């Protein structure tokens, strides 16, 4: 009956299948099934923090809003953090907890507010009502770009003020201070100064929620400059809940103001501190009011108080003492005399953006820097870093062809690094190697030598690092007699040649080529930029405070791509919108900018990808965000740039501007797009795009590489470190036909059984981030048209004769499923003892060969073959390996034979016990039999002690199991010691078997005779086959 029932059920599901079949499309989240990204960090230098928020009553809970890595929550007082905002934009301005219900209600304003050149954009206002597990977007702030403040009335938490700093690169009427009185349903803009002036700080009096202060800031950035300050910057106060506002400048110098920081003492609402940026240098820095803003007194203009106001504008006052004031800055400054004098905070990563005090103990301070969060336990003298915030902000990454391959890249304010894509125990902090200081950008490995090229901002230094001999040399192109001044981008382009290993390219306004790894350079192009002089004066950049860091250098080459098919074909893209190509190694250049379609003039050419599929084929992506144009742009040409085709579809979010594209080297239609809002993938050349969201937050993807040996997509993200999608080869095989099938196995290349063993000693890493490793197992990849929910679905590995080798747990997801098999069969059945034997935890590896994967789904069976090979790096000969496999098998059988012997012996002992208990006549025979068996048993297996230090001396099982386990897991030939030990154990086992037989023949026979005589049943003992099943 049950059977019929199931058949009907399956028949029914089969019909529903055909109903949904029409829905299959070449896009959508389900396409990727359980293909998941993995994160390898690093976290050791962490990344920029925008805001820290303390829970008001539970000191274990801390939130942080990060510049490019989302929102993280600590529930252990800042020892570790976990990400809680991974479905949404990762650039965060502010996190605020509801004062009445801080456990549940969390507000997040997105868009970082320390407006350096490389900042990401936000995407609105969000709220969680369950402590950060689920988030809802609050309508009305879609175009806010950057939210700096969220302030909640503690007496009535439906009353919320939001300060919108707004767009960095364009005018915006969305700026200003907003208020809701109904918990966010409706909003009123209560302070607006103009389209160029945003709300930098909005704060509330600690006692009187009708008293508010707002600092308004006039600012604007372009691709080539920054301007802070203007007539509209001002500090306002409202005493009626935001209905009316008045400037409170009594004492401030006249003229333009820049960014203003303001804070009110939590313990005394009359005491305010403000940090000003003014036209009078000596009036910059800290100001104080002791009458709630009616008048101001200038306190201090030390470097620490005046440095880079756009970047450091946070004042924090000790919640218990209004004289203790901390100001963010290059090092951070602390005053203990009400702002008269300051000293630097203790050593930590520079660039301090936010500081908070512990809710109960002012000795404990948390600091948010360009390099993560730091904790101090002694009032700010010494700091230690939070070790599990992988917020690293890569500008660029590349990979090599080592095994496992390494990932190279440079970071915002955190130098240049390389580290392995996998490492014993996971990718740890200590696996990463520093190969450059300052801001790091492009890091490239020499194609054949162990040489690494790296650079710092503006190519001030380009290093050639000999990784074997640990020597560095600076090799940046230097001006020669008659050269104009070289203009290098902040993130200056470098490229190595695929065709001439020692060839190395760099771009200023010219293309520079070196054929001796950077020792001598030749300029092989004219100025390829627009050379627009209006975009070249950075000495005045910054506005009221000059900020000429080089970050705004413009009219420069930004991307250089050498064709993988022809060393003479070079593509160049400039930050001012030019695409240029040469087909003769730089003798002649063609400006193809005119031919671009749909790209506004002078839009930054962020990346050009020269195709593997045709000499004239290339992709170019354009990024207009520094003009306020956030639209995604990507074009493809197949004729050296004469004509271009748009490859962006409506599937891509309209503010997801593009920085990178990566083509598959095998399937021309498979493309990966790195955007401000994460990764998009197309399998039809750009007709449809799917957002990849499996363990992949919508973080800004700055660079993508496809590691060709492993077919891994490796992403350099600006806020979540390096993120990898292992083996994308199944995506190459996806097409309409596959999507229509119920089950489809993807073809995979032969799997190598990796032969590596080592140690990962993980002491001291308890609170560290550890990156996930690439699985080294065989990946069985298949597509399911429908999620499997009802009825059995199993997977087996069989040899080609159909013998079961192992059973695996199949994935049941709709879409792509990945099942890992670690090349082992099953563990041997092990004799029962008092403790555990190693043999029972060791499954032997299979020999190389072809195996069948058999997937059974209901009544249907699907088969697929995979090939498994030995490792090329093996340290044994094939003959030695066969000996190892043979001995493994012999020992495996021996372990099982012993297991059966101990089982059988135990069953006889049970029978003897029964007789002893129930048949006094037989007590003697039974006791003799029992005791003889027990004597033997105690020599076969451990019968006393525990699994720790009260352990007994090892018996035959333990020693046999140890040898089996050692031989089975070894990658080397069977050693002489092992052979000798095997001889000993074999002999002992033989002797034990003989002893057993003697007991059975003597005491056993008597016992059996007694059973027979008394018509007692013989012990029921499973056959060996039954026992081992």
């Amino acid at each position, binding site marked *: 009956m*049950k059977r019929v*029932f*199931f058949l*009907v*059920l399956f028949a029914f599901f089969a019909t*529903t299948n055909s*109903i949904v079949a029409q829905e299959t499309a070449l896009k959508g*989240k*389900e396409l990727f*099934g*359980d293909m998941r990204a993995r994160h390898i960090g690093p976290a050791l230098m962490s990344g920029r923090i925008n805001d820290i928020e303390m829970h008001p009553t539970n000191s*274990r809970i801390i939130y942080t809003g990060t510049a490019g890595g989302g929102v993280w*929550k600590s*529930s*252990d007082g800042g020892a*570790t953090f*976990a990400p*809680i905002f991974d479905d949404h934009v990762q650039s965060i301005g502010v996190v605020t907890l509801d004062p009445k219900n801080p*456990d*549940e209600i969390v507000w997040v304003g997105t868009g970082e507010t320390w407006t350096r050149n490389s900042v990401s954009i936000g995407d609105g206002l969000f709220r969680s009502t*369950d*402590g950060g*597990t*689920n988030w809802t977007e609050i309508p009305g702030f879609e175009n806010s770009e950057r939210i700096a403040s969220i302030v909640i009335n503690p007496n009535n938490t439906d009353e919320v003020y939001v300060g919108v700093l707004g767009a960095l690169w364009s005018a915006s009427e969305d700026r200003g201070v907003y208020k809701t009185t109904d918990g966010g349903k409706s909003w009123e803009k209560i302070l607006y100064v103009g389209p160029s002036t945003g709300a930098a700080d909005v704060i509330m009096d600690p006692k009187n929620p009708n008293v508010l202060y707002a600092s308004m800031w006039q600012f604007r950035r372009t691709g080539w400059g920054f301007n802070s300050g203007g007539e509209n910057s001002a500090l306002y106060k409202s005493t009626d809940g935001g209905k009316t506002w008045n400037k409170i400048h009594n004492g401030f110098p006249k003229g333009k103001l820049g960014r203003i920081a303001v804070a009110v003492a939590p313990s005394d609402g009359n005491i305010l501190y403000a940090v000003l940026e003014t036209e009078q240098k000596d009036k910059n820095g800290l100001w104080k009011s002791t009458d709630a803003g009616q008048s101001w007194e200038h306190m201090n203009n030390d470097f620490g108080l005046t440095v880079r106001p756009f970047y450091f504008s946070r004042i924090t006052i000790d919640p218990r003492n209004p004289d203790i004031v901390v100001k963010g800055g290059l090092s951070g400054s602390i005053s203990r005399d009400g702002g008269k004098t300051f000293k630097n905070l203790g050593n930590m990563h520079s660039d301090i953006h936010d500081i908070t005090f512990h809710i109960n103990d002012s000795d404990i301070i948390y600091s948010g820097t360009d390099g993560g969060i730091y904790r101090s336990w002694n009032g700010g003298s010494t700091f230690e870093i939070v070790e599990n915030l992988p917020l690293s902000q890569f500008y660029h990454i590349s990979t090599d062809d080592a095994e496992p391959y390494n990932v190279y890249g440079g970071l915002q304010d955190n130098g240049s690094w390389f580290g392995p894509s996998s490492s014993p125990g996971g990718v740890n902090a200590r696996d990463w190697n520093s190969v450059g200081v300052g801001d790091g950008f492009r890091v490239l490995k020499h194609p054949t030598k162990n040489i690494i090229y790296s650079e710092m901002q503006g190519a001030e230094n380009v290093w050639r690092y000999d990784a074997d001999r640990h020597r560095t040399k600076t090799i940046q192109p230097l001006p020669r007699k008659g050269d104009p001044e070289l203009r290098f981008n902040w993130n200056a382009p470098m490229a190595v040649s695929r065709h001439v290993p020692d060839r190395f390219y760099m771009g200023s306004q010219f293309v520079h080529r070196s054929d001796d790894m950077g020792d001598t350079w030749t300029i092989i192009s004219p100025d390829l930029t627009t050379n627009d002089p209006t975009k070249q004066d950075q000495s005045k950049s910054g506005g009221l405070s000059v900020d000429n860091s080089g970050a705004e250098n413009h009219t420069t080459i930004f991307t250089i791509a050498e064709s993988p098919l022809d060393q003479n074909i070079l593509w160049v893209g400039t930050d001012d919108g030019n695409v240029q190509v040469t087909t003769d190694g730089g003798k002649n250049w063609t400006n193809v900018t005119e031919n671009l379609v749909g790209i506004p003039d002078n839009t930054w050419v962020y990346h050009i990808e020269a195709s593997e599929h045709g000499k004239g084929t290339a992709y170019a992506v354009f990024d207009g965000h520094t003009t306020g144009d956030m639209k995604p742009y990507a074009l493809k040409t197949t004729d050296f740039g004469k004509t271009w085709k748009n490859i962006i579809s409506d599937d891509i979010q309209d503010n997801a501007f593009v920085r990178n594209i990566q083509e598959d080297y095998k399937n021309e239609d498979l493309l990966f797009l790195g955007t401000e809002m994460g990764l998009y993938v197309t399998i039809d050349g750009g007709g449809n795009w799917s957002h990849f969201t499996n363990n992949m937050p919508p973080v800004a993807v700055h660079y993508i590489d496809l590691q060709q040996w492993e077919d891994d997509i490796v992403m350099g993200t600006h806020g979540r470190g390096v993120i990898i999608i292992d083996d994308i080869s199944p995506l190459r095989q996806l097409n309409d036909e596959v999507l229509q099938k119920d089950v489809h196995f993807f073809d995979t290349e032969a799997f190598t059984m990796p032969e590596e063993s080592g140690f990962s000693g993980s002491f001291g890493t*308890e609170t560290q981030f550890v990156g996930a490793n690439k699985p080294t*197992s065989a990946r069985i990849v298949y597509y399911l048209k*429908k*999620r499997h*929910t*009802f*009825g*059995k*679905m199993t997977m087996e590995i069989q040899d080609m004769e159909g013998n079961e080798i*192992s*059973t695996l*747990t199949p994935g*049941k*997801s*709709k*879409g792509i499923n990945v099942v*890992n098999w*670690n090349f*082992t069969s*099953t*563990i041997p*059945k*092990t*004799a*029962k003892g*008092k403790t*555990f*034997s190693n043999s*029972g935890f060791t*499954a032997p590896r299979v020999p190389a060969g072809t195996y069948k994967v058999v997937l059974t789904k209901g009544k249907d069976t699907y088969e697929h073959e995979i090939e498994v090979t030995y490792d090329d790096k093996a340290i044994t000969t094939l003959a030695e390996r066969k000996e190892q496999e043979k001995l493994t098998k012999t020992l495996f059988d021996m372990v099982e034979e012993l*297991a059966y012997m101990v*089982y059988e012996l135990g069953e006889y002992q049970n029978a003897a016990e029964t007789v002893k208990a129930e048949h006094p006549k037989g007590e003697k025979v039974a006791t003799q039999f029992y005791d003889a068996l027990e004597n033997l048993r105690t020599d076969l297996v451990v019968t006393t002690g*525990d*699994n*720790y230090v*009260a352990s007994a001396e090892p018996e035959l099982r333990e020693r046999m199991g140890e040898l089996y386990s050692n031989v089975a897991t070894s990658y080397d030939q069977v050693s002489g010691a092992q052979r000798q030990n095997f001889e000993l154990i074999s002999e002992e086992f033989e002797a034990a078997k003989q002893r057993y037989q003697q007991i059975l023949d003597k005491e056993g026979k008597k016992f059996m005779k007694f059973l027979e005589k008394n018509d007692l049943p013989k012990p029921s003992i499973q056959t060996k086959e039954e026992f081992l099943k």
Partner: protein
Amino acid sequence: MKTLRTLFIAILLVAMAPSQAQTADEIIDNYFENTGGKDAWGDLDGIKIIGSANAQGMEIPFTMIQMKDGRQVVEIDLQGQKMTQMAFDGETMWTTNFMTMEAEKADAETNEMMKKASKDFPSPLYNYKDKGFEVEMMGTETIEGTETYKLKLTQDPVTIDGKEEANVSYYYFETENFVPIATETEVKAGPNKGQMSKNTMSDYQEVDGLYFPFDMGMAGQNLTVKDIVLNPEVNAEMFAFPEKAEAPATDEKN
């Protein structure tokens, strides 16, 4: 046969109007109706699940018994040794220490949590209102590549390391058939504290009229069910903390 018919009709309805809005209660009612009927679930006194935990070549057989009154026991078989991995007799939860192979009591907070979970049988969603739990419809979400209804379940708060914390979990019901295919709960302790841990369910099969998942993924570990026995025979001893027979005589004078 009645079960089949209801299941048939329910699925047919869903197939015809897949995007029709559903309330949390409708989803839960549909689930219990489609998997055997609300009454049948209510009549269940306990279940015994026989299966194995699988990991690459290793299969650890287990037997799990869960009773309506909250008593439960998990017994595993490792190298022929059967041991109680975890048991709860309604008052005391205990485990076996793998070093000594001796029984040890769970800490007070864990024990308290187990006590609170006593009313979870056969599912915390069953008559959840009577249990004082809250359920909220969160909308639809793609889980395991397929569309699901997401329900939030809030149970009685628990105490973790001395502080009271909300006890929230999420259920994902496949929209096509109203059975849960995944649940999510926040990890309350250990190195992954604060992160969500996901369990998946598949291979639903019928056992005497009720449907159970025969395959469960629990935080990376896979459990395969071989057999389920409804209303198993049990005795008090199976759940009780074993008082040590040869406990050393304590000096009572102090």
